[in-house]
């Protein structure tokens, strides 16, 4: 399987994502933001970082990069696209995922391990997980406070688009286990079709025991398994 990792000016998790893909014994390549085509990849990753300095709003300028037209076409074909952290913010700004990001309720940049509850284990990104499985994966962001209105939240729930929610180590979900103020403790969502995932936590940073967790691997394993069956 070949993963394309989109590199914007200011991306800084691109190398980590490539390393994670190679750690899973898959091929990965960087794709410059000015590229015209992404057709020869099986899956795409929009990595974390600070594309265009986070000017105006996180992801607001990156969504107009030339490569984004082909990312849209790629997603429309039902192929898997993962946006991690800044990548999630870009997918929201581009309208590939619904909702928007606000500044963390604490106004602080939060960099720490959190626990995620797998809410939907039927997506291409979670099919190897048990429903309710708890994943320990780090977050590192200042604009990760996911916002949607009540109507959109109802739609997300009805379509099983909520992929991950912030919880404690036992799976308890409440205001105390919500690091950034996100609506419904949302840490990650998919589009309606299920082939586009955005998540604030960094699975590519949880691939080895020495990093503190290997729970990020299951997301990559799920995508690879999905692609093999496709």
């Amino acid at each position, binding site marked *: 399987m070949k993963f394309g990792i989109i590199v914007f000016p200011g991306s800084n998790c691109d190398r980590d994502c490539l390393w994670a893909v190679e750690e899973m014994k898959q091929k990965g390549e960087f794709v410059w933001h000015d590229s015209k085509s992404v057709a020869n990849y099986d899956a795409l990753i929009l990595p974390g970082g600070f594309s265009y300095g986070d000017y105006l709003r996180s992801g607001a300028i990156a969504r107009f990069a030339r490569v984004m037209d082909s990312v849209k076409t790629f997603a429309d074909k039902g192929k898997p696209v993962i946006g991690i952290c800044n990548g999630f913010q870009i997918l929201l700004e581009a309208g590939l995922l619904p*909702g928007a990001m*606000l500044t963390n*309720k604490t106004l602080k940049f939060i960099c720490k391990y959190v626990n995620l509850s797998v809410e939907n284990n039927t997506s291409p990104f979670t099919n190897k997980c048990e429903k309710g499985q708890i994943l320990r994966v780090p977050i590192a962001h200042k604009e990760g*406070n996911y916002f*949607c*209105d009540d109507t959109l939240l109802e739609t997300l729930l009805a379509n099983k688009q909520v992929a991950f929610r912030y919880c404690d180590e036992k799976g308890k979900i409440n205001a105390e286990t919500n690091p950034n103020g996100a609506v419904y403790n949302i840490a990650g969502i998919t589009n309606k079709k299920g082939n586009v995932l955005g998540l604030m936590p960094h699975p590519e940073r949880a691939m080895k025991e020495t990093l503190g967790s290997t729970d990020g691997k299951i997301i990559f394993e799920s995508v690879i398994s999905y692609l093999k069956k496709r």
Partner: protein
Amino acid sequence: MPKAKIYVTFKDGVLDPQGTTVKRALDKMGYKNIEEVMIGKYIEVQIKGTDKKQIEKEIDEICDKLLANPNIEKYTFKVE
């Protein structure tokens, strides 16, 4: 050259953590009359042209496409 003065603010019902924090600071400073603080963005755009209607149309378009995120923000502007 005409100049557009653009204000981007949060829509009603959207949490504004910066505004809330500044409000709390003002409370602590003893300003008892402060009801609410909202922090938004102010943007100035210099734009070529003489047709005010056309300029307003263009500014409205760039606000909608880039300067504001309609999911969470609203905007107003005046062209001078």
